C-alpha cells in the first residue's frame, strides 16, 4: 500500500483505469461532503460502466463454467456459452442461483478455486441444517476491503480516523468486513465487537472514536445508554456511523443521528455476495449506491422472475462480477426493494437501491442475525415432548427485536413443580441458542391456545412496527 496517495483534492486519475482492485488509490472529495476512495471507478460514465460489466460478466461466467460443475450443468442445459453473453438483455436468459443451491453444495461445492487457494471462509445461517459458506481468495479479500473503504470514505472517513467497530466478529461477515476495509482505508480500527455497552461508551470517549459501525438497533441502544448516563451528543467524538445488516427506517436514522450527534448511513450486503459493502449510502442519504463495477444488479418479479422496469419494487438479484473464489450468477437475495439510476448529487454514477422494504421468503432478521422459522422448527421437533403446535412471535422491546417461541404444554412436558417447567423452558432456549445463536424466550401455553389454521399454519407473528420495513 506504500504507493497509495491519499491527499484529498488531488482528483480523479482521469477515468482511464478500469481496475477495481488497483493498488493505487486517489482519495478525492465527492460533491456531498464525503470522499471517493476510487474516484475513477466510482464515477465511470454509464456507457463505460455497462461495457465493463459485460466484460466482467463473461469472465465470471467463464470462471463459473470452468470450475463449478453446478454452473456448467445449468449453462449447458440452457445452451449458453459464456462468450455469447454480450449485452444486458442477455442477462435475463441466465439461470438464477438460490440459497438452497448453496446449501446443497455445502461446504465448498460452489467454490471456483481449490480450498487451498481460499484464504478465508465466512458463513451465514442457511434455511435449514447447513450454513451457507462464502470463500475468498486474497484478491477477493482485497476487493472487499476496497468496497468497505469506499463505504467509509463516502461518509467522510479518511486515513487517520478511528473506527469503533461494534459489529460481531466471527463467521458473520460484518465484523471482519468492516475491519479490513477500515484498515485498507488507513483508519485506526478498534475491534470491540458487539455488546458491553458500558465499555463501548468508555472506549468511544477515551480513544476518541470518530466513526462507529454496528447494527442500527445497537446504535440506537448506545444512543439511549449515553443519554441515560447524562452524556450529550457533543460529549461523544463520533462524526459518522455505518449501520446495516438489518432493515431500518429513516425515522430511526433521525433518532440515531440526534442521539449520537452523527450522520448515520446505511450499508447493504449479504454474505453470499461477500458481505457488507455491496451497496452504501453517500452523505446525500438518498438510497444506497450499488458497487456496479463489482455487482450486476437486477430487480425481478419474485413470482414470474421477469425483470421489472426501473423504479418498481421487486426482488433484488445480484451477479458477482469480480469475485474469484465464488462467482454467483443471478443470486436471489429475497430482499424486496427498487432501483433508481437518477444522477446522485454526490457525483457517483452508480444506480442506487432503496432500503429493503421486506422479504419474498419468511426469513427474519433479528438483531442482525438471519433466522428462518424452519430452523426453530427443527430444534423444536428434535425435542420429543413438544407438541407439533408452536408459534414464533417477533416483537420489539425498545429498539431491540425479541423472539418468543410459544409452545403448548401437553402431558409430555407437564410435571409436578414450577422448577420442572422452568428447567424445560431453559432447555429449549439453550438448544435454540446453540443452533441459531439467538436468545429466545420460550413461553408455555395451554393446549389449543395456539390458533389452528385451516390451511398453512401461521408459524410466525411479526408484531414489530411495520414502519421498520418501510419509510
Amino acid at each position, binding site marked *: 500500500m506504500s504507493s497509495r496517495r491519499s491527499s484529498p483534492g488531488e482528483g480523479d486519475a482521469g477515468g482511464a483505469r478500469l481496475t477495481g482492485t488497483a493498488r493505487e488509490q486517489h482519495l478525492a472529495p465527492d460533491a456531498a461532503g464525503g470522499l471517493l476512495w476510487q474516484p475513477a471507478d466510482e464515477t465511470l460514465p454509464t456507457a463505460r460502466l455497462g461495457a465493463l460489466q459485460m466484460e466482467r460478466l463473461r469472465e465470471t461466467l467463464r470462471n463459473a463454467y470452468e470450475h463449478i460443475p453446478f454452473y456448467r450443468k445449468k449453462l449447458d442445459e440452457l445452451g449458453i456459452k459464456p462468450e455469447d453473453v454480450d449485452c444486458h438483455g442477455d442477462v435475463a436468459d441466465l439461470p438464477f442461483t438460490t440459497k438452497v443451491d448453496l446449501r446443497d453444495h455445502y461446504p465448498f461445492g460452489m467454490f471456483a478455486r481449490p480450498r487451498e487457494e481460499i484464504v478465508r471462509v465466512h458463513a451465514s445461517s442457511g434455511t435449514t441444517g447447513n450454513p451457507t459458506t462464502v470463500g475468498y481468495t486474497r484478491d477477493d479479500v482485497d476487493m472487499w476491503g476496497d468496497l468497505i473503504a469506499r463505504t467509509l470514505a463516502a461518509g467522510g472517513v479518511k486515513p487517520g480516523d478511528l473506527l469503533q467497530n461494534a459489529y460481531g466478529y466471527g463467521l458473520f461477515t460484518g465484523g471482519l468486513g468492516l475491519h479490513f476495509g477500515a484498515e485498507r482505508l488507513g483508519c485506526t480500527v478498534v475491534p470491540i465487537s458487539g455488546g458491553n455497552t458500558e465499555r463501548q461508551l468508555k472506549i468511544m470517549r477515551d480513544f476518541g472514536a470518530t466513526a462507529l459501525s454496528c447494527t442500527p438497533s445497537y446504535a440506537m441502544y448506545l444512543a439511549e445508554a449515553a443519554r441515560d448516563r447524562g452524556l450529550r451528543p457533543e460529549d461523544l467524538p463520533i462524526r459518522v456511523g455505518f449501520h446495516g445488516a438489518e432493515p431500518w427506517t429513516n425515522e430511526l436514522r433521525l433518532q440515531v443521528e440526534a442521539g449520537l450527534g452523527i450522520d448515520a448511513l446505511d450499508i447493504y450486503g449479504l454474505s453470499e455476495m461477500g458481505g457488507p459493502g455491496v451497496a452504501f449510502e453517500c452523505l446525500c442519504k438518498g438510497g444506497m449506491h450499488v458497487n456496479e463495477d463489482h455487482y450486476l444488479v437486477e430487480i425481478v418479479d419474485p413470482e414470474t422472475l421477469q425483470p421489472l422496469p426501473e423504479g418498481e419494487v421487486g426482488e433484488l438479484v445480484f451477479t458477482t462480477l469480480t469475485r474469484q473464489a465464488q462467482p454467483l450468477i443471478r443470486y436471489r437475495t429475497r430482499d424486496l426493494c427498487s432501483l433508481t439510476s437518477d444522477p446522485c448529487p454526490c457525483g457517483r454514477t452508480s444506480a442506487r437501491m432503496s432500503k429493503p422494504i421486506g422479504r419474498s421468503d419468511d426469513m427474519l432478521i433479528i438483531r442482525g442475525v438471519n433466522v428462518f422459522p424452519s430452523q426453530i422448527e427443527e430444534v423444536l421437533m428434535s425435542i420429543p415432548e413438544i407438541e407439533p403446535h408452536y408459534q414464533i412471535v417477533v416483537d420489539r422491546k425498545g429498539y431491540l427485536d425479541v423472539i418468543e417461541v410459544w409452545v403448548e*404444554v*401437553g*402431558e409430555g*412436558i407437564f410435571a*409436578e413443580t414450577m422448577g420442572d*417447567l422452568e428447567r424445560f423452558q431453559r432447555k429449549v432456549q439453550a438448544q435454540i441458542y446453540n443452533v441459531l445463536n439467538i436468545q429466545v424466550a420460550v413461553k*408455555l*401455553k*395451554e393446549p389449543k391456545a395456539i390458533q389452528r389454521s385451516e390451511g398453512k399454519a401461521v408459524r410466525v407473528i411479526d408484531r414489530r412496527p411495520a414502519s421498520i420495513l418501510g419509510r
Partner: protein
Amino acid sequence: MKVTQLTVFLENRSGRLAEVAGLLGREGINIRGFSTTEAAEYGIVRLIVTDPVRARDLLHAAGFTTHFSQVICVRVPDEPGGLAKVLGELAATGASIDYLYSISFQNICFAVRDIDRAIELLKDKVALLTDEEVRAL
C-alpha cells in the same frame, strides 16, 4: 398414606381458575383443598378433590393438561404451636418440601422427594391421614 393430588397447568389468564372450579362443581366433584403457584405467565393449580379420576377426565375433555401425583396429608393439632410441632417433625426428617398448602381447616398437605421415607419417619409423630380419611374430612 399417600394421597392423590390432581395438578392442572394454567396460563395466567383471569377466570381460568374459576373455569376449573366451575367445571368440577357442576359435575358434583368437591374440592377439598387447592393451591396455586405464582408465575408471571403461567402457573400450576394443585387440587385435592373427592373424585380425582373423574375430575382428571373432565378436565382433559375440556382441554386442560393435568398430572397426578402423590402427596402426604397431616392433621395439625388445633392449638397454639400445633403447626410448629408438625413442621418441626418434618424438618427433623431432613426431607425437603417442594410445596405445602392447607386443606380444609386443620389439615395440610405437602409433597417431598422421597414420600415413602417421609411417611415412615412421620407416622408415629404426627397424625397422618389416609386417602379415605382425607376424602371424608
